[in-house]
């Protein structure tokens, strides 16, 4: 058991402006299940992309040794050829093709370009049996559930004679039964000699299945724990995952907290794509005037889904629950309703949901509050210019003028445009989803200052963030979300990274 099938050493991967991985080392023994743990954005997925050739050789520094040979993969095909297969969190199956067709997609069982359907379906049947999938190979992918789709992905990997199987958050979208089945299957594969690397946020699963755990934080390897030798507990892993330095400076603020401004009760949202799956499950939270409230949760915990479903039902189906504004129950059926009730939501993905990148600053700033700048449907363009110019100065948006196209601004300045847009609607409640993602340190500080200013003006702020130090440095109170449930409410004084991470990884009892 001491032979290493994989060694990655000194892996460094740089994106423009960011070091995603810095001198990362990973050693995986043959025939083990090796878990990789870390916060959102710690670099786990990047590391796996380096390993599987998504980032080809030359785009990173460091060495990969697989099966005793140095590897320089130029693409996924090379790594698959060597026997490394990665299964991404978002499954890469074609829904209108059959199980068998998906298994052999790009690897067709064919003779002189003509597909041998008997062989295809027979071999697919053998593979599905191996992964415990009781479905006819000719069934369409769209007709089976996510749990079974995950098994098809594994069958597909097995068809490529996989030696090292990488699974990125394999149980994130699965219910408990499907998860248990999947974990059993991985144990079975281990016994057949297939090595697995599994990325997971669910620490109870990691404890249950893994033989070793490597912890990554801020793009660096922190430690590798041997489950057999060391006495590994969830707390032990958590303390490795967090402990990020709190050296980000945060602007000072004296909170002046007033009356309750906004409250959600028993909010439940079902997934639009997977019938019956609760994405948000009975969540309740409240915000007070002048208060900055954090919402912490790992990827897939349902933070954005919660925010979007509240903001005019822009996500989810069968939404139930109650919303109160200033103590009075309100109905929010559309985004217009939400804006009318003084609620603003700055989206997580600026470029996709927040901005019209081909338009200029002033037209983006006025996009949500245009009614206030117009009379009887006619826009006062001069007023629009004046207001945009005001925001450009007060927000310190770095651009030659408000006629500059938004697509050319840096991430930090784009975020300031998004915030300006929502402040123009004069909201009482602001939901800010990852407001500092992809922004450099200096601009982050500016965004923090703006958020503090909003709270000082008596607005209630709900801040969703993956960066725990940011939440600890800014928020008066922090809710934690895990698997769609609110698992904790921690006041500023009691909040530590360890406590939050514990609550964020708390599974269902």
């Amino acid at each position, binding site marked *: 058991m001491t032979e290493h099938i994989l060694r990655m050493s000194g892996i460094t991967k740089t994106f423009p402006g960011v070091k995603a991985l810095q001198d990362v080392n990973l050693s995986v023994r043959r025939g083990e299940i090796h878990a990789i743990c870390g916060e959102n954005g710690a670099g786990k997925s990047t590391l796996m992309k380096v390993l599987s050739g998504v980032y080809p050789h030359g785009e990173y520094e460091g060495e990969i040794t697989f099966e005793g040979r140095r590897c320089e993969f130029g693409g996924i095909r090379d790594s698959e050829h060597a026997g490394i297969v990665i299964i991404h969190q978002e499954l890469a199956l074609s829904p209108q093709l059959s199980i068998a067709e998906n298994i052999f997609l790009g690897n067709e069982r064919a003779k002189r370009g003509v597909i041998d359907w008997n062989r295809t379906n027979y071999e697919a049947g053998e593979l599905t049996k191996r992964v415990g999938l009781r479905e006819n190979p000719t069934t369409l992918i769209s007709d089976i559930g996510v749990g079974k789709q995950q098994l098809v992905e594994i069958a597909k990997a097995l068809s490529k004679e996989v030696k090292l199987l990488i699974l990125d958050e394999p149980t994130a979208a699965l219910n408990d039964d499907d998860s248990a089945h999947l974990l059993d299957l991985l144990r079975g594969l281990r016994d057949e000699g297939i090595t697995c690397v599994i990325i997971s946020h669910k620490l109870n699963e990691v404890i249950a299945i893994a033989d070793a755990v490597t912890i990554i934080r801020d793009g660096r390897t922190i430690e590798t724990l041997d489950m057999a030798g060391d006495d590994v507990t969830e707390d032990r892993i958590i303390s490795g995952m967090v402990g990020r330095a709190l050296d980000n400076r945060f602007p000072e603020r004296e909170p002046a907290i007033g009356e309750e401004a906004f409250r959600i009760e028993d909010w439940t949202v079902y997934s639009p794509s997977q019938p019956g799956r609760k994405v948000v499950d009975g969540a309740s939270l409240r915000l007070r005037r002048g208060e900055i409230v954090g919402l912490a949760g790992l990827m897939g915990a349902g933070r954005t889904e919660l925010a979007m479903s509240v*903001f*005019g039902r*822009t996500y989810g189906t069968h939404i139930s629950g109650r919303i109160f504004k200033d103590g009075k129950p309100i109905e929010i059926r*559309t*985004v*217009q309703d*939400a*804006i009318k009730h003084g609620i603003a*939501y700055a*989206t997580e993905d600026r470029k*996709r*949901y*927040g*901005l*019209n*990148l*081909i*338009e200029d600053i002033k*037209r983006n700033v*006025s*996009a*949500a509050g*245009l*009614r206030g700048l*117009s009379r009887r*449907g*006619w*826009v006062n*363009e*001069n*007023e629009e*210019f*004046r207001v945009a*110019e005001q925001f450009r100065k007060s927000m310190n948006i770095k651009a*030659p*003028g408000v*006629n*500059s196209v938004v*697509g*050319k601004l840096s991430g930090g300045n784009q975020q300031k445009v998004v915030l300006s*847009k929502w402040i123009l609607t004069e909201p009482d409640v602001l939901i800010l989803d990852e407001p500092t993602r992809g922004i450099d340190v200096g601009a982050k500080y500016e965004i923090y200052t703006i958020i503090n200013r909003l709270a000082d003006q008596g607005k209630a702020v709900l801040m969703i963030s993956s960066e725990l130090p940011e939440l600890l440095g800014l928020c008066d109170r922090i809710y934690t979300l895990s698997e769609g449930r609110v698992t904790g409410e921690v006041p500023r004084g009691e909040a530590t990274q360890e406590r939050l991470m514990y609550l964020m990884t708390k599974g269902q009892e």
Partner: protein
Amino acid sequence: MSSITPADVQVGAMGDGGSPRQPGRVSLGGLSINLRSSGIYIAFALIIVLFSVLTDGALLQPQNISNIIVQNSYVLILAIGMILVIIAGHIDLSVGSVVAVTGALAAVLMVNMGMPWPLALLVTIIAGGVIGAWQGYWIAYFGIPAFIVTLAGMLLFRALTLTVLGNQGIGPFPDQVRTLANGFTDGYLGNVGLGPLGGADLFSLLIGLIAIAGMVVAQWRTRNARKGYGQSVEPVALFALKMAAGAALILFVVVQLARFKNLPWVLVLLAVLVLGYSLMANRTVFGRQIYAIGGNLQAAVMSGVKVKSVVFWIFVNMGVLSAIAGVIFAGRLNQAGPTAGNSFELDAIAAAFIGGAAVQGGVGKVVGAITGGLIMAVINNGMSLIGSPSERVMLVKGAVLLAAVAFDVWTKRRAGASR
């Protein structure tokens, strides 16, 4: 009114002149010209010069200018609606058939049923709106791609036309409708002599002068208001140059028309529509929302734009404009025929794209679409004047469309690469 000035030349004041080479921008004697937004007008000017030379000046003769306007008015009207549809990121393939069916309806009402023409016109326009609402419903509220819905509409409304007409033409139309489609303003004030140019209609000339005065005053007031808000404005000299160029163009066209048969009524209608729709697109909340939807649908939704309703009304509007074009086309031929409007949708779509609309939506101008339509009109007219066979005209039009869109994609890619 800024949008109807022909020369969309901008000064490099925005980037303080010192900005490192901006893509798609060329510097010409101190003026920096945005190629992407004004290339179309330069191309139009070059095409006019080219065909003026090739036809020994026949292109710009009074009667020919009048012909170009009257013969293409319906496509230009369609192009106004089409550019809005395309800015929102959709397409409408049915407009040719809608032109046919509304023309047929007008014929049945006016000729067969003897309904007074103003009432019949109103009913036809409402019918166009209902047709647009039908398609808008499927597209906006039911969620079927516009391509499919309007492809179906193309067949449906052609079938309806044939049913209504019983496969034969209906005519003749009342004189007033024919005058609207094909006629000219009366010489209310008589003629004046213009020296070597001969006699010209005084009323037409006055209208032209009023239009010029209106343009200058409106532009000057806009400029002053901007200055009052501390916005950068172009220097007085450039402003004067732009106004002079615009005035010269209007004056030239009006004088030529006044020497022929006065102003075509369709030109008056077109001018009103272009002005109205330009203002709507630029200065109303509704117009802004069209651009927002085409620029980033998701962001528009998350900013509280009622996307479905906006898309619905864009198609209603397209139906109304198709009905107007339908009546004008039928009135011009003095007959509503089963093949009316064939391939008009393609001309309107081509006009919009030649006029600078982006394939992904979010970009385009009403004046651009009109210019695009006029480019095709001038190519058509100029080539037939020099006796080119129709297949060659088609070839050139196809090449121009492809080149225009390729140019748009190319400038965008260069802009993206320099980011």
